[in-house]
């Protein structure tokens, strides 16, 4: 599946962006990318990406069998990071989890949509049957984008997130079924 990269996409404003899997020598580019992500966005990520050591450890320990990180590059700079996480055995082997972070400078240009669509295609090719995305309820634009890609809100865990001011938000779990079947109703 990864042999189809790099892929070129053109954003709404004509900007040319390349999608490809993250490589070990991308470590410093990835560090720089996460430094540009505003603190209020980083707050909701699972890891402290403001710590360069954390980010470098990802690039150093790439394992495409477990996590496939696809980065978007513009002029050699990473402007988007989308990851497909897989469980390789057991009851969740058919499920993939997706995560996405976009550089503020290229938001609202449809890069996030393209990267999500690319992950969906990747997951389809890998034979996954469900995709899950977990989002804070405050991320309204992301929820709307996922809905347009046929993700359905399957669960809400109330007040699981707190922002930096202590305001609470729900965790929204959205699922896309990659193996829908017709019924004979």
């Amino acid at each position, binding site marked *: 599946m990864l042999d189809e990269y790099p*892929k070129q996409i*053109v954003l709404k404003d004509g900007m040319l962006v390349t999608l490809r899997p993250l490589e070990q020598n991308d470590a410093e580019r990835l560090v720089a990318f996460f430094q540009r992500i505003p603190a209020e966005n980083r707050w909701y990520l699972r890891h402290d990406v403001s710590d360069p050591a954390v980010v470098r450890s990802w690039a150093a320990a790439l394992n495409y069998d477990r996590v496939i990180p696809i980065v978007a590059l513009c002029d050699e700079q990473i402007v988007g990071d989308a990851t497909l996480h897989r469980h390789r055995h057991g009851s969740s082997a058919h499920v993939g989890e997706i995560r996405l972070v976009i550089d503020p400078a290229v938001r609202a240009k449809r890069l996030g949509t393209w990267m999500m*669509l690319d992950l*969906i295609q990747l997951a*389809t090719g890998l034979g996954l049957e469900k995709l899950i995305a977990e989002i804070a309820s405050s991320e309204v634009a992301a929820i709307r984008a996922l809905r347009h890609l046929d993700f359905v809100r399957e669960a809400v865990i109330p007040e699981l997130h707190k922002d930096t001011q202590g305001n609470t938000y729900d965790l929204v779990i959205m699922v896309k079924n*990659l*193996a*829908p079947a*017709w019924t004979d109703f």
Partner: protein
Amino acid sequence: MSDNRLLALHPTPHEQTLLSPHGQLRIIRTCSPDVLRTLSLDTGIGRFARYRSIISGVNTLEKVAVLPDANVTITISSAQQIVGYIECSYPDAVEGWRDNADGLCYELGAIEVSRNWRRLGLAREMVATIVADAFIETKVFFLTGYSWHWDTDQTGLSVYAYRNVLVRLFRPFGFQVYLTNNPEIRMSSANVLMARLGRSLTAQQRERFQKMLFTFEA
């Protein structure tokens, strides 16, 4: 290759035989309207409860065969029935392929194998016959797969699994999946656009195609 040379080559006719468990078959590349007129469709191509062929009859193939540089490739049974077909032609500007006056892009518009003749590798044989033509090396040869056309009823596959079958069919022939803002492709994430960039294309032509994929909303 300069752009005006894109139209210098034309699809060339070719015929071969193929042995199948159900008898000898003939594959004809660039089948003429005159030959098509003498044939009928196998009963596995047509209208079914939850699936309908793209073509309504042999006359649909005849109409494509008369278009400039069109290529209707068919597989014929010993009963003189069409058991599989692929139709190729330049894409329609109405469908958004506006910047194609020089014939850079060439579309595989439809592919089907009769329900009675599937799992014999006929689609693969027909695609191989088409891409063996030198004409294809001068083109961006692309196809758009729309999930609502697929026979998920007989195959029992989900649209995503069916999409995988399509991708696996075309990938060995040099086709790759491309992202595009083509509105019909974007109607479902199961839809797919694949393309094969001919060996004779210049870097500029390849780049032009890449940009063309994102001009459907311009």
